[in-house]
């Protein structure tokens, strides 16, 4: 572990920012969802980096929990997208505005 810790943190920050840009620019609900997964993964990279440089396994434990939540979120979110597609025949998030008043 001769690499400075900043390299990992900057890579993680860059991936998070790419995820933000993906969420804000894409209109396909599935790609928006994949960008959220990308942001979760960049947070995981930060967790593992600090866990490894501090020599403490609790950070890796939390990555394990984040993976659990991401799996649950993917299952429920994709089921919601399928249900929306059945009702409106689109995955464009600009046209899915029934919750807007």
């Amino acid at each position, binding site marked *: *572990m*001769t*690499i400075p*810790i*900043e*390299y*990992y*943190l*900057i*890579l993680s*920050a860059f*991936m*998070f*920012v*790419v*995820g*933000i*840009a*993906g969420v*804000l*620019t*894409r209109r*396909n609900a*599935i790609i928006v*969802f*994949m*960008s959220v*997964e*990308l942001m979760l*993964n960049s947070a995981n*990279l930060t967790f*593992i980096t600090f*866990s*490894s*440089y*501090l*020599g*403490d*396994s609790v950070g*890796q*434990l939390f*990555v*394990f*929990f984040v*993976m659990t939540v*991401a*799996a*649950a979120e*993917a*299952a*429920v979110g*994709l*089921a*919601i997208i*399928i*249900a929306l*597609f*059945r009702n409106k025949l689109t*995955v*464009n998030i600009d046209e899915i505005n029934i919750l807007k008043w």
Partner: protein
Amino acid sequence: MSLELILFIIFAIISAVSAVLMITRVNPIISALFLILNFASLAGLYLLLNAQFIAVAQVIVYAGAIMVLFLFVIMLLKPEHEKKLLAVNKNVKIFAYIVAALVFLQLAYMIFFAKPSVSMNAQVAASIHAGTIEAIGFELYSNYILPFEAAGFLLLAATIGALVLAKKKFE
């Protein structure tokens, strides 16, 4: 240049480039495949950080299970006019890139201002032990047993929720 640095540069370039390609490709299937590549290179980075268990779990859970679910749903839904989906308001796009650049500048400023590599020294021996499945399992079943049970309950709730949501009949 050490082997560790070379491997880090390779994996970092793969993960950064595949992340950018993921949000710019028109076809959602290709986006999903680039996301899988990104997850795989992240698993390589986890191995460089002595986190073997999480690296394996990353490949199995993320690149395997979750992305198969995504690919299933992409192929299940009728492909739309992607050109129409790409027609985003120009102002929205500019706003999105400005927000992204501001967040990146803020994060980079914090990372370099705090100087974590000066204030903390790497615990190499401890980190080799911390990444083993033995150390993680010990923590999981002793100090973090309640969050572990809660995670199991969350997965059960998500399974039932996904079934209920996706079961509804066509009208």
